[in-house]
């Protein structure tokens, strides 16, 4: 199991600071009516802090909210937004909305899989890219689109997709 120290990348805070932030957040939510209902909000906060949901963090949430870890696992695995594995250095979200699909997102996805040699939901062995599906990024006018980190790349072809990946690789070498 990867430790949180080596993989977290969303914030530069130390593990202790992150945990303290999470605990403060949980404590705030527990003052409301129906405190258990804030579980999903707490998991959002945890993923924002850690980049994903490490198992030890879920244990921590379980303890502080008084909810069984099994229930938390059930919730975390039910929703696509939550990731149980650390993301790659660059997160590639391929839009598989209908508009992108009819404009060839399927071929873009295949090109990505071939080029990165990973499947959707996986991370490349070098930890550089992770590939995840997205349902409509709302940029249908630019279909087919791929979002790499926060940047949208539109009107792609399989060839342009591969070129784009190579650009990121080149930058990493520098």
């Amino acid at each position, binding site marked *: 199991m990867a430790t949180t120290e080596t993989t977290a990348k969303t914030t530069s805070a130390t593990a202790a600071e992150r945990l303290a932030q999470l605990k403060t957040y949980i404590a705030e939510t527990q003052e409301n009516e*129906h405190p258990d209902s804030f579980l999903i909000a707490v998991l*959002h906060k945890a993923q924002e802090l850690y980049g994903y949901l490490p198992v030890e963090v879920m244990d921590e949430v379980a303890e502080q909210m008084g909810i069984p870890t099994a229930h938390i696992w059930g*919730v975390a695995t039910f929703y*696509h*937004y939550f990731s149980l594995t650390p993301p790659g250095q660059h997160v590639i979200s391929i839009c598989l909305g209908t508009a992108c699909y*009819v404009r060839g997102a399927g071929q873009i996805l295949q090109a990505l899989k071939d080029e990165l040699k990973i499947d959707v939901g996986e991370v490349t062995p070098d930890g550089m890219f992770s590939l995840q599906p997205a349902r409509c990024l*709302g940029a249908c006018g630019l279909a087919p689109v791929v979002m790499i980190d926060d940047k949208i790349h539109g009107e792609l072809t399989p060839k342009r997709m591969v070129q784009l990946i190579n650009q990121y690789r080149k930058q990493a070498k520098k």
Partner: protein
Amino acid sequence: MTATYRIIVCDGTTCINSGARRLTALLKEHLDKHDLTETVTIGLSGCLGMCDKGPIMVVNPGYTIYGGLSEADIPKIVEEHLIKGQPIARLAIQEDHLYNRFFRVFGDDKFFGHQMRITLRNCGIIDPESIDDYLSLRGYEALAKAITDMTPEQVVAEVESSGLRGRGGAGFSTGTKWKFTAAQEATPKYVICNADEGDPGAFMDRSAIEGDPHTIVEGMAIAGYAVGADKGIVYIRAEYPLAIRRITKAIEDARAHGLLGDNVLGSDFSFDIEIRLGAGAFVCGEETALIHSIEGARGMPRPRPPYPSVRGLFGQPTLINNVETWANIPVIILDGANWFKTVGTETSKGTKVFALAGKVVNTGLIEVPMGTTLREIIYDIGGGIPQGKTFKAVQTGGPSGGCLPEEYLDTPIDYDSLAKAGSIMGSGGMIVIDEDSCMVDIAKFFLEFTQNESCGKCTPCREGTKRMLEILTRITEGKGQNGDIEKLERLGHMIIKSSLCGLGQSAPNPVLSTIKNFRVEYEEHITEGKCRARACSNLLTYEIIDTCVGCGACRKVCPVAAISGSPKKEHVIDQEKCVKCGMCFNTCKFDAIAKV
């Protein structure tokens, strides 16, 4: 002296993605440089709907709409247009597009072209982050009217009489829902806005919230008064950060103005709204699943009755409506049900917003009166099919809907006509499909989605969609068997009959509607091993044609060494060895590889 201008920059997601914010910053720099900051003001707007022409800037007065702008265009606009008063024709969107007409009636609520805006009435006109903008366009007047001039019963009666039906897709009467919730004696009651837009290829709700968040807040507050609830919850997708930020700001501003919180507008009525984030589960659009999600559990539906209006969130009476439904409420209260009823058809009143996308010239967000035909939307508003291709089908209702072929193009858009034609209204996704798409593949695409999103509670939905997907997959791989079509139909009808919630009950629709309307394509795949759209890779062969210059790129990239040829000579693919991966096709720089 220089003239006074107001520039509106579209701040919708698509325009932001195509660089609108960078251009705004650049524009500010240039205004500074030329000392124009006093005479030229910049405002933001929500999505203008012209998504394929972004980034968009509108220069007023004059209604000049600039589209497809790049950084180099900004100094020119400043120097030519703002200083010399010469609009730049090259950059202006000239065609008398309906959106142009929309701006000619800027500030007027008259009808224009084929579109009519009720839900999106303020989108693109007001700055979505300014409550003053909203207030200046009769914002919160409907709430004031409801609280001061009407009893809660009168508000419910007005909504019921308007004939408004749920815009989330199912089309249940909104007034009836309100009446049921109002009739409950248990308190507290809850009012929920369902903004968990999950249909892949639809972004109406997001644009509505991003463009005019206050109208949702106002609609919910009116409902709170009408049904006797003091708490509202907006359940919104975590994937919509901009919409979340804007609705949060709208709620805070409304609170600061005394429009939310204790004693709204000095009355006895108190109401406040909080935001809860979804986490990416399509099934949470179903109301009982949504309630479970807000409660912090897995979003799985439960049998109804009891309906949420009786036992909903935390076991209390709960009213749930979709974003677009909420946006209609202030208009109905302010202008009256009698006016609202004049728009639309016998059974479906008002307008509907669609996210028009796919193989159509103008993609974007449109709003039309109910009763507009599919043909008018696709050809008059959408501008037809690009690149001279042939129309094949239009898909409405997303993964719960169906594909309608050409003979249904004159179907008027309303809940009942679309259902009769074999599709559904749905939440508003409208995807145009041309000859390049394979209908079996499209059906498979939607089923993959619903299969993946099935929560797993009901066996027919969990296992049945999986079996259907297996059959579809083998058909697209050229391994279809006789009887597969009948099997799909039997399974589909069985899943529809035996599933608990809307997801399962509608999951087979894309398959059944494509079988009904495009059966011949299924048959070709099975009996002839042919895909007429050349979309199913296993059913086509790759061949090298005479534009080949013998560069050898394809030979190197082929994973099974099926390509041979000497340098600078035309290469050849060994069809026996070829695994149809398409690598050669993607690699070739000379378009010398053809799909046959």
